[in-house]
């Protein structure tokens, strides 16, 4: 680590250029959620769900702004901020909550993906073997360091992008009148939908860990916002097509409406394009798992001063057991809900408080040293 003027930043060679934050933020926001978010938000907001998506996007942008306020002020990652503000023990406790949160994100993404594979492709798949293979991928990636993790985030956005073109096929059968009448739901219904929408978008909080790995971190803020915008664009695009393609009642019966939409696509050399979609989706969920596992293991390494390459296998084995232990749709759904509540609390309540506290305390401390 290089120390310059009290600011702790990582070695230059390990750092990434600021615009890659665009892909880092975007890649963790698009995961398994895209395949089935429609039912959840249309439950309360119906054909006005697109308003909820925009509202969620704006709130996330505000959250990103708050995060950058905190990070630009402190110039270090969350673990160090906690340590400075609350001391070793209480700070460590808060850090541990975040680490568990990130780990559960990785777990939920992996388990939900396996569920989709089970339902759509291989009903009799051996979950143990499948998880071992995917976590092997994660291990291979994360041990390469942050640059490689950022690399898979970049490739995970760029390479599978062709898949979004396939959503143009349902437009042929779409009925855009379904969007009308606009604003026929109450503000309360819309805010519930907004809350539900935000669940899938909260993975960007890993930014709190990789901030020191960004070259000129202050310049990266606009890229983080753009990354979020692209996410919202993609969700909006898929949602509008879903609203136009399905009726509200149909959507309420589709757990994975996006996948169901693919059934209409017909190409001369391929039928059932959802197989291609699910297959390509590996490259989309991989950065999700890698980044959250990286953030968690980096946090543990900083707190307990273990070697990073020893932390990662332990974490992955824990994840493996947890993945195998979770059985059934209800458990996965419940886990998703708890995670969502925890995420909302952490990002929208805890983080602003922490930011205010950090401004307050660092100012005071500076004043003290000035007087003394």
């Amino acid at each position, binding site marked *: 680590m290089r120390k310059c003027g009290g600011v702790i930043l990582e070695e230059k060679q390990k750092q*990434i250029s600021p615009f890659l934050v665009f892909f880092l933020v975007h890649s963790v926001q698009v995961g398994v959620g895209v395949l089935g978010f429609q039912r959840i938000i249309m439950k309360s907001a119906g054909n006005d769900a697109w308003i909820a998506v925009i509202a969620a996007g704006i709130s996330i942008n505000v959250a990103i702004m708050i995060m950058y306020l905190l990070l630009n002020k402190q110039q270090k990652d969350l673990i160090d901020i906690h340590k400075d503000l609350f001391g070793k023990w209480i700070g460590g406790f808060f850090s541990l909550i975040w680490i568990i949160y990130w780990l559960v994100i990785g777990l939920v993404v992996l388990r939900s993906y396996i569920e989709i594979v089970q339902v759509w492709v*291989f009903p009799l798949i051996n979950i143990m073997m499948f998880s071992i293979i995917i976590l092997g991928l994660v291990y291979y990636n994360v041990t390469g360091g942050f640059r490689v993790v950022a690399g898979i985030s970049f490739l995970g956005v760029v390479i599978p992008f062709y898949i979004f073109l396939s959503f143009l096929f349902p437009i042929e059968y779409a009925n855009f009148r379904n969007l009308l009448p606009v604003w026929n739901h109450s503000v309360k219904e819309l805010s519930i939908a907004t809350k539900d929408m935000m669940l899938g978008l909260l993975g960007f909080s890993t930014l709190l860990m990789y901030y020191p790995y960004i070259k000129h971190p202050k310049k990266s803020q606009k890229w983080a916002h753009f990354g979020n915008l692209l996410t919202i664009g993609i969700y909006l695009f898929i949602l509008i097509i879903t609203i136009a393609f399905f009726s509200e009642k149909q959507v309420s019966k589709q757990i994975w409406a996006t996948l169901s939409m693919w059934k209409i696509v017909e190409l001369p050399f391929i039928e*059932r394009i959802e197989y291609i979609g699910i297959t390509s989706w590996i490259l989309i969920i*991989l950065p999700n798992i890698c980044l959250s596992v990286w953030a968690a293991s980096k946090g543990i390494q900083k707190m307990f001063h273990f070697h990073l390459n020893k932390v990662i296998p332990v974490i992955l084995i824990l994840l493996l057991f947890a993945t195998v232990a979770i059985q059934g749709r209800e458990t996965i759904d419940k886990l998703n809900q708890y995670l969502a509540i925890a995420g909302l609390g952490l990002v929208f309540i805890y983080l602003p408080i922490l930011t205010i506290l950090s401004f307050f305390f660092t100012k005071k401390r500076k004043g003290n040293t000035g007087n003394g």
Partner: protein
Amino acid sequence: MRLRRQRRRLNKGIEKEKEKEKEKEKDESIESLFQQLNGSNDFTLSTLPYEEHTLSIGYYSTLIDSEILHRDIFPFLKDLDAISSLPTLLPIEEIILTTDISVVRDNLLKGYTLIFDVNNLNLFGLVKSDVDKTRQVSLPEVEFSVVGPKESFVESLDTNINLVRKRLPIPEFVSKELIIGKLSKTRVSVLYIQGVANEENIHTVIQRLTDLDFDQITDSSMITQLIQDNQNSPFPQLIDTERPDRIATAVAEGKIAILVDGAPHGLIGPTTIFEFFSAFEDYYLNWLVASFFRLVRFFAVLFSILATPIYVAVLTYHYELIPKDMVATLVTSRSAIPLPPILEALVLELAIELLREAGARLPTKVGQTIGIVGGIVIGTASVEAGLTSNVLLIIVALAALASFTTPVYQMGNTIRLIRFPFLLMAHYMGFIGVAISFCYLLIHLLKLTSLGRPFLEPFYPPRVQDFKDALIRLPYSLQSKRPIQEQTEDTMRFNGDKAKKKADPKK
């Protein structure tokens, strides 16, 4: 830790010096040296009794050119009054006068002729008279091109450097020579342009080469394996080429080249994966044509890796994927086949590998026959016998053909190898297995570096500027900057604005 390492290094240094001293002691006297050398029959030592003094002359008859000996040395020796006047007497420019026995020994082995006065053993004269037996510069065979120069490297380092230097007649073009190999004492040259090539890259190459501790270097491909960043990767991380024009261009671009004596191939680094798919002919064709062929080659590689695994995956698990019209074709071709898709594919893939290997090991003319016999006879026979399907035969043959489009031979081998894990994973998990193998490949490529520079550049880290010469090749007027990958000291190749203007007289 660091202290201990330093101490170990110090100890090593002291030991080395001791060894050197021992060696010196051993060879202190000329008599013992001659005794050692006389052990081999091609060493000749003869005495020439002239009137004033008696000269002795020694050489390896297999290393020296007898014509030089007879024409340029013997006739002049008669007039020699002292060894110290050898340089003025003989019409040869490289003459060493020394008192050191170890210098005498080393140069005798390099093809020098030893001349000394029997009565005065204090001064030895060494005259360069080595024979230069190498083949003529010939056509490139591995990287043949229809357009462009048709010279290729030969096994002599000096000829090879000459081939490069005549393309870069500037004093900044530097060739640093190193000796590697305890037994082979191979001369290895590092070529670069001072002020263009990145200093750090130069240091990396020279440091890695000097740190090499190996007994015998017989070819440049051994150097690649020994100094590349990840030695356990199937991907070569330095380009090897037999074209001097390619080396010259690479060096001018800010890269570093390594030439090895006795090897008809040079090495280039740092490089990226995309360069392995660019034939040098691309630079001699119009940019549109060149870009098209590059894309074709790139898709050929993807096809070569993915075609058979996808066939296996679809037929094993995802037959719903096949459209109605295509089902009939597949069913008729596969209905009689008793083997599961994976075995069918493995048998055919291995048969193709067998043909290739047999063709490569046999002499050219026999090899061609083998190719025809194997390709046509075995192919049709196995389809008629109902062992493989027509469709798969086409796919496997095309995939093999596609893997041969890679301009760099070593990369072609890699591509044929990595197809097999894909096949096995396709059999195990269908499409998802293929995707997982693809992810492994991507992460592996992300992790690879070439002389410390990212291997997947300009794709990752994304550098838009370097895309001008990666998947496609843009016109030369847009190529005014050197690639960022090389981190060159001087980034401009030429003035881009000037290149765009044409100085035609206006009509």
